[in-house]
């Protein structure tokens, strides 16, 4: 423990001062600044821990009065899974775990002195129990009932009465009926037909068992409520059960059924007297199980899935995916709800028995850890990384210590200053929003605006008349041009019903040689057009065209046909002219469509 204290005191002056300065500023901007109530005892970015709050526990594993941090590291979820014990700032011990750890719990399983708690690590279908950090016992969940048909077909396979294909057929039927089947049968279904025989051969002799997986772990005092009284283990399983395990005989004392697999468990009371187990399940409902209950059906339906559930005082505090923190009474009534500024990553209780203060620690993905006393935020700690695992409690000999594990695997330990007081409403709620006192962004009145206004006041009538005059002229010009366009067939689509041709011209090149491309499309839906030709009208002094007339083949509806010709500019005066493109139809004296191509100035002459 001495290391922690030293580290803490070494860091204390600098961080303390820095935080105090920022604390002043936080009067105005409570959103940005970190709290000054915490001393940084350790910031180690290197351990590479991958863990969750439920896989961390602060406990005195050796019974020498110094609490250690026990962390189950999920590794990369397949390998490298370890149980680590930190003492002070250093790693004290490490054990390999063979399956994915689900949760860690410390509990007393005997009355021997010196009192030292055992550590339970739930992993896969088993719970491993360590005493004095040495492996002590392994409990595996009792296997679940088998479907009789499944049992029978595997027995038949064992005795050679059924082929692999038959086994598979029966199992597939079973699954399609919605029956629960063993992991072995599930794998069989996933196999390629070639591998069936081999698989059945390999496994048919092994006993068939349907195992579940532990999904949540908690403890429940057995018959006494003292701090170091014997506790039972409470396990939630993938098979939607909650089981209570006797700590001495390792038998299942109670088994209760839920509608969905539990994610978080909160137990209270004494097993032998009366108890309640609150389970947040994957279906987004919180169920309550009491002593003697066999199953739970009715529960609190949350608005979104729970990200964490803890007990604070007598209430259940739940953080949900939709950035809400809610408090529920034991009867299931929502007492309060607070909107959180970011998504929650971890939730843990904060308890200061000496001050009688209980609150919730909420880690969020905006790199903060906030303390919520009911719906009020009373403290905010800014961290360097998103915190994914968080625990508050006694560490070493320090009563109020906060241990966090970041997303990138860093470990940080904070010590709460003894002078720290959590004041309600320090989060700065209430009052009108700050924006109410900011000015509306309006531009200044300009001289031009005033002049124009004055002018309009003076001569509104003449302005209006002029406007109407110009409007009529514009309309007249538009009409004239429209008529002209119709007369010269200068519209891009021919107006004639029989030959709806669409024309589009492009000019490529910088000069003096250009390529003029004429795109023709038959806009009719059904009928093809034949007998067209393209002709050009241009100033012979300015341009020379490679082809003066292009015969057009049969036009199929819908397709675009491109015809191109080389245009050579003959002048070096830097002037350009328009070339007219006529689409002609045989035996017709006026063109179907006329396009006017404004040729660009030949650049080689300009330069």
């Amino acid at each position: 423990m001495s290391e922690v204290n030293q580290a803490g005191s070494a860091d204390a002056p600098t961080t303390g001062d820095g935080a105090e300065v920022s604390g002043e500023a936080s009067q105005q901007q409570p959103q940005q600044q970190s709290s000054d109530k915490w001393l940084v005892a350790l910031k180690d970015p290197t351990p590479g821990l991958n863990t969750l709050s439920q896989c961390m526990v602060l406990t005195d594993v050796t019974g020498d009065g110094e609490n250690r941090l026990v962390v189950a590291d999920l590794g990369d979820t397949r390998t490298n899974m370890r149980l680590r014990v930190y003492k002070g700032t250093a790693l004290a011990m490490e054990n390999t775990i063979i399956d994915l750890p689900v949760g860690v719990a410390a509990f007393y399983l005997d009355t021997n002195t010196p009192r030292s708690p055992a550590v339970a690590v739930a992993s896969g279908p088993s719970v491993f129990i360590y005493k004095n950090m040495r492996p002590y016992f392994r409990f595996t969940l009792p296997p679940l009932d088998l479907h009789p048909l499944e049992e029978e077909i595997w027995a038949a396979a064992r005795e050679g009465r059924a082929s692999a294909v038959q086994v598979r057929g029966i199992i597939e039927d079973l699954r399609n009926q919605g029956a629960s089947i063993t992991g072995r049968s599930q794998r069989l279904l996933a196999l390629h037909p070639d591998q069936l025989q081999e698989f059945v051969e390999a496994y048919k002799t092994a006993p068939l068992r349907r195992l579940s997986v532990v999904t949540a772990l908690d403890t429940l005092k057995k018959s006494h409520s003292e701090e170091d009284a014997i506790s039972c283990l409470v396990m939630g399983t993938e098979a939607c059960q909650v089981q209570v395990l006797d700590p001495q005989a390792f038998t299942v004392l109670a088994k209760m059924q839920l509608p969905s697999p539990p994610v978080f468990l909160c137990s209270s009371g004494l097993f032998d007297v009366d108890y309640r187990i609150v389970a947040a399940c994957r279906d987004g409902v919180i169920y309550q199980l009491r002593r003697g209950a066999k199953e739970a059906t009715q529960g609190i339906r949350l608005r979104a899935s729970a990200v964490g559930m803890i007990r604070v005082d007598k209430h259940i505090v739940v953080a949900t995916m939709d950035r809400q923190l809610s408090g529920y009474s034991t009867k299931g009534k929502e007492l309060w709800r607070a909107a959180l500024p970011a998504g929650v990553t971890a939730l843990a209780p904060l308890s200061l028995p000496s001050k009688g203060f209980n609150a919730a620690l909420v880690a969020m993905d905006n790199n903060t850890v906030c303390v919520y006393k009911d719906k009020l935020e009373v403290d905010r700690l800014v961290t360097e990384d998103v915190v994914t695992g968080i625990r508050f409690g006694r560490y070493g000999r320090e009563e109020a210590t906060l241990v966090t594990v970041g997303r990138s695997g860093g470990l940080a330990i904070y010590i709460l200053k003894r002078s720290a007081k959590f004041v309600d409403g320090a989060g700065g709620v209430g009052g009108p929003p700050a924006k109410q006192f900011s000015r509306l962004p309006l531009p200044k009145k300009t001289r031009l605006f005033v002049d124009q206004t004055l002018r309009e006041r003076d001569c509104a009538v003449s302005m209006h008349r002029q406007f109407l005059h110009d409007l009529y002229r514009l309309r007249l010009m538009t009409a004239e041009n429209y008529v002209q366009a119709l007369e010269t067939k200068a519209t891009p689509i021919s107006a004639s019903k029989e030959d709806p041709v669409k024309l589009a011209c492009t000019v490529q090149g910088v000069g003096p040689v250009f390529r003029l491309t004429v795109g023709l499309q038959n806009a009719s839906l059904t009928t093809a057009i034949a007998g067209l030709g393209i002709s050009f009208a241009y100033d012979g002094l300015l341009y020379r065209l490679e082809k003066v007339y292009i015969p057009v083949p049969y036009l199929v509806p819908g397709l675009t046909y491109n015809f191109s010709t080389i245009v050579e500019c003959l002048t070096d005066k830097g002037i350009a002219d328009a070339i007219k493109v006529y689409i002609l139809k045989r035996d017709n004296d006026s063109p179907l469509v006329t396009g006017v191509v404004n040729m660009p100035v030949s650049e080689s002459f300009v330069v």
Partner: protein
Amino acid sequence: MSDKGKSSSGRGGIVNSDDQNGGVVGSKAPPPPQPQQAEPGPPPTKDPNGGGSGGGGGSGGGGAPKPAAPQGRKPPELPQVERSNWLIHMHYVRGEFDACMRLIKEQLVDSGNLCEYALYVQGLILRQRGRIQESMDAFQQCALLNPSSVNNLKQVARSLFLLGRHRAAAGVFQDAAKQAPDDWEIAHNLGVCCMHMRDFAQAKDHLRRAAGLRPHESTLVQLGKIHIIENDLQHALEVFRRAVELAPENPDLLSTLGLLYMQCNQYQKAFEHLGNALTYDPEHTKAILAAGSIMQAHGDYDVALTKYRVAAGNAPESAAVWNNVGMAFFGKRKFVAAITCLKRAAYLSPFEWKVQYNLGLVHLYTEQYASAFHFLTAAIQLRPKMPALYMLLGVALSNLDDAENCRLAYDEALKVEKETGSRSLDPLVALNYAVYLYNSGDASASGRMLGEFERRLQERHGNAAAAAAEAPDAVETGKRLAALLNVGESLLWRTEAPAAAAAAAAAGPADSAAPAVHRAPAGRDQPKRFAGAGGADELRDIQRAPLPPTEPPSHPKPDPTRRPINPQPDF
């Protein structure tokens, strides 16, 4: 149970031996220490499978099992298919979708795409990422794996719904409803699907059933929406009242209820609810706009502007906010600021006729008749059937000396009134027409029109006192015109002495014509929030609170707590 007890006890011995072998065979297992081989403390009384999957655990870390175990040896125990379901769930709820997808991929490879929960969460994540089609494929696979699960069906249906295939979605929901008839979520979603298919009767049935099964505010919101679409405001009010009872702290619901009360002309209640909404969320733009418009209607422009500052900060690109801010400045007679704000609103929403209308109105006030003409024409283009617009156009044209078009505009106003069949005709149309006719020298027509004004005024306000209280400027103008025309006998103000001297009044009507058309268009942004708001409502809103121009214009109530908003002087 008995069967299970027998089988497990019968197997106990085998399992233990299996365990020992498993430890050797599981070559991929990480090396010892293996905790389960520690000496058991107290002998387990009932734990036949104590070391049950020791070998299983060993291969648990090793990935997909190879059935090709050495001949004659026990094969490695298979890791559980669902071994990391809980971790997938944890990653999902914490929003760590990348890590979650990685884990799901591993588990799916392990289980040959047969892990239902992994597929399910994959579907959820894909949906959150907007890949609806892929997400639906995942849910369909889930439904194939476990056809009895209602949840899978619900998710498939929801995906269909999100893809806009409402009919298909409703079909799947109906299938799901067969399996779980009492699920409020299914009933709710069916209702929403029917709503999108415009089958409102069915939608209401489903939603009411959902609300009966489990009252939830989202169900009531959907039900209320249908009532609003059907223009059934009374039922909508009732539904939203129930929703507010369920979620008394939801500012969205409170402000919607407030707006509904506004539409029903219950401004006191509306203001109450809007105030509540602002208590829970002081930055709720919708509630600010609605509450501000009520304040504007009461002439409380400074408070309204203070509130609008918050809204303008939160939604600087909302044309409605700038429109209302502009009209608040207009109410304070700060015309330059009003024009600035309204022009910003017009820039943000160029096809909103209300903004153009207000711009036209403000320009009439600043005597910029040519500009007013443009804005009013634009408004008429956007909304052709509004008598008030033609009337304002008439006022603008009469000031532009365009007698012919002016008369046409007024005639059009009267014609449109007839066509739309408004229940309550606007007296101001008649009054302004009468003023124009008088100014153009057609005294007899003017007298007739004044009679029409009289009739309409009576129809709307009932008696002379009420009319004088609610529209004093219009009545005043009417009186002066009547005096000039000498047609006082049959009129409302017959008993009063013609106070206005002829000399003063000669120019009077022309001047007062513009003020007579003035009303506060504040709050006219509310009706458009409701799809069902008809033309009549908008009409009502415009005419709701005629602002007396006789009110001392530039003396807003002194309010020591507020800083001056707009330092720009009136011009």
